[in-house]
């Protein structure tokens, strides 16, 4: 298997497992987080726009911004 003798060796990374895997993990995590965040942002903006449109429609039906008892 590539530069390693066994899969266990590969996981152990010559004793540097912690550093190597943590750094790859963190990098992966950050990228995924950025991706999810962007997705979430997009969704919330879409919702916001649709909602705003609805509100506008509702208000047009209500027609007034007057105080009532």
């Amino acid at each position, binding site marked *: 298997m590539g530069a390693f003798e066994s899969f266990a060796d590969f996981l152990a990374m010559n004793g540097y497992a912690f550093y190597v895997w943590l750094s790859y993990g963190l990098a992966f995590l950050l990228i995924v987080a950025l991706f999810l965040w962007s997705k979430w942002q997009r969704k919330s903006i879409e919702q916001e726009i649709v909602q705003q449109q609805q509100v506008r429609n*509702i*208000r047009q039906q209500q027609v007034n911004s007057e*105080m009532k008892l």
Partner: protein
Amino acid sequence: MLSANNLTCIRNQRILFEDLSFSINQGSLLYLKGPNGAGKTTLMRSVVGLNQLQQGKVELDQQPIADCGDNVLYLGHKPAVNEWLSAEQNMQHWCNLKNQQIDILALINKVGLAGLHDVPVKFLSAGQKRRVALSRLWNSNAKLWVLDEPFTSIDVKGVEVLNALFARHKSQGGMVMVTSHQDLPTNVVDEVLSLEYRF
């Protein structure tokens, strides 16, 4: 019944009012008049206990006003509204403070802010901000309302609604004390107290 006896306030070595006594009966409205700087605001703040008086005491139903907590509603020049929060959140906090359970969105509709419930108050117009503050009148359980220039920035129709609110509150046995530089309709006003500008 609200009774204020022998109130005296001296500000900056100037006597604003001296030995002033008045009372408001159940179901009546006191219209406090006077030119700018006469001491109307000071008098109102003294009545609700936000101002140290040189002399005199105020009682609501024979109790000192300081103990009347939720029976008094004072709305002054300052709106008591956080600019960063939305109208809805502001109203929610007020209800929490006053321990009320009400339908806030309905209230927002009533004060004419429909559709603006989640906009930070900062972005509302002057009159809309004022409406957020005045929304407290709608579901108030307080017997005594003390309102300092409530009509500021409110449009003509809004003023009518407020007057109708006063009438309703009076009919339910409430008491109202109002100042304004815009005249109130005569059918709402029961008593008038005029403060003069004293030198």
